[in-house]
């Protein structure tokens, strides 16, 4: 039974991985990657690493890939990206290097495991409690460094998004433009929800007048 599941999941992982690099459409490529990640999660389950499997699906398939799909579905799909000549030469070289490295690693350590029965299953292995205990004792330093790295990445993302003209100022300009054309207290959804005060001193509506030209781009915020 476990052998059948293993081969289904392994073939799924391989097909997904091949699909990522061979499919032309970026959307299908991302979907192939999702398929690959879910197959990997099934392989983790077969190794009794329930927590890792769930984390794999929740974090990668359920969050990271969702953003990929989001972006690709909005902007991707049109023209095909033509790879430059440098990329055409370097790509296979890097792939070859990774393949050699993996072969060395596998031949060096994995071959010994084939003849033995493998590591025994210890009760509680791979459970969240077990993993949590290891994180806070044996691998505490690595765990903290990794969390620091994630924090830096999160702050960096916020800073970068802010430098590139966030949505807020533009939204306010847009709202102002709308205001100029609408009598005060006509009851928009924003007024009703209280997110924007009712325009008490709004300018008189001027029909047949186009909205004021959008103000110039605000200066990038120094952070």
């Amino acid at each position: 039974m476990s052998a059948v599941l293993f081969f289904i999941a392994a073939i799924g992982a391989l097909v997904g991985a091949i699909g990522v690099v061979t499919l032309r459409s970026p959307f299908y490529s991302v979907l192939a990657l999702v398929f690959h990640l879910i197959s990997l999660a099934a392989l983790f389950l077969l190794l009794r690493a329930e927590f890792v499997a769930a984390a794999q699906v929740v974090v990668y398939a359920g969050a990271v890939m969702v953003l990929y799909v989001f972006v690709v579905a909005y902007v991707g799909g049109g023209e095909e990206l033509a790879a430059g000549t440098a990329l055409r030469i370097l790509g296979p070289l890097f792939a070859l290097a990774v393949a050699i490295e993996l072969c060395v690693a596998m031949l060096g350590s994995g071959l010994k495991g084939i003849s033995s029965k493998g590591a025994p299953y210890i009760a509680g292995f791979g459970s969240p409690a077990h993993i949590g205990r290891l994180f806070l004792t044996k691998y505490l330093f690595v765990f903290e460094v990794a969390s620091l790295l994630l924090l830096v990445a999160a702050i960096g993302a916020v800073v970068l998004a802010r430098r590139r003209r966030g949505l807020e100022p533009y939204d306010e300009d847009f709202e102002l433009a709308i205001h100029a054309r609408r009598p005060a207290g006509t009851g928009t959804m924003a007024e009703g929800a209280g997110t924007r005060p009712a325009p008490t001193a709004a300018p008189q509506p001027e029909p047949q007048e186009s909205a004021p030209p959008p103000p110039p781009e605000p200066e990038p915020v120094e952070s």
Partner: protein
Amino acid sequence: MSSSVAVVGFYEPWWIQIIKALVIFAAAFAILPILTVYERKLLGRFQNRYGPNRVGPFGLMQPLAEIVKFATKEPFRPTTSIGYMFRIAPMIAILTAVAALALVPFGDVQHIFGQRVGLYGIDVSIGPLYVFAFAGISFYGIMLGGWSSGSKYSFLGAMRGAAQLISYEVSQGLALVGVVITAGTLSLTGIVHAQRGMWYLIPQFAGFVIFLVASFAETNRAPFDLVEADAELVGGYFTEYGGTPFIAFMFAEYMNMIVVAGIATTMFLGGWLLPFGIHPPGWVDPFVVVAKMMIFITFFIWVRATLPRLRYDQLMSFGWKALLPLATLNLLVTAILVVS
């Protein structure tokens, strides 16, 4: 896995697991049509009308008539759609919803035919993470359905679904972490047993409210049903679906509602436990759980009849600026209280 080191609590024979799976699925499958009538009749009462009352006694046969109507419709898809994805998407939606149902515990371990049978599909060590894993995959049902329809309404609905699901999943998860910290276990039956003294509704009230609000968004129910905002998007991601694939999406939506109600019952309302020290025999447990789930489902319908739909930016700013900080604060306070 022939290792002798492994120690599992107890192992149910394979036939019991299959029977359990069939019984739980059949029960949920039987409840779902009744739920649609229940929702429509309740909505009718809220809106000062009768609701469906023509087919069968009290209109109870209404879903049967509708299923026949949907099943006999001509299969149709737009020329711009992508055929096989268009067909796969409802399957993903149903599969993930039913898989998540397996986690809801309907009762304690019972002795039936000399076997120890847990009245739940599975009791995994990762607990709620299992539900979140399938919630993560269920996104692809919505996404593929909207994208492969080749229609702008569907696409926009799916995109809203994407943003909404990942925004509110975080708050929902953090609200549950408070319960998990208090109970000290991830197993859902363990969490129910930990509520013997007091249901977590009281010590984790903030978490309960946050979970409930986030659940509205996760299940695409009003007032967060922007995914299928019919005033602006016709029908959202299933605009182009008709016939049985459409039923599949509706089935998944109601099933998700049942799952969320089950998780809320387990996490906050003490699962199959009854207050005031009442200990009914074991076979009553599933009915207690279903009754508690019906409280949540009634509340879902009530809110749908009461609150108007939010605007999209309100949804996002509420999720990220109000709900997420609250959930984090709740988690921090809980952790401090538990440790100290």
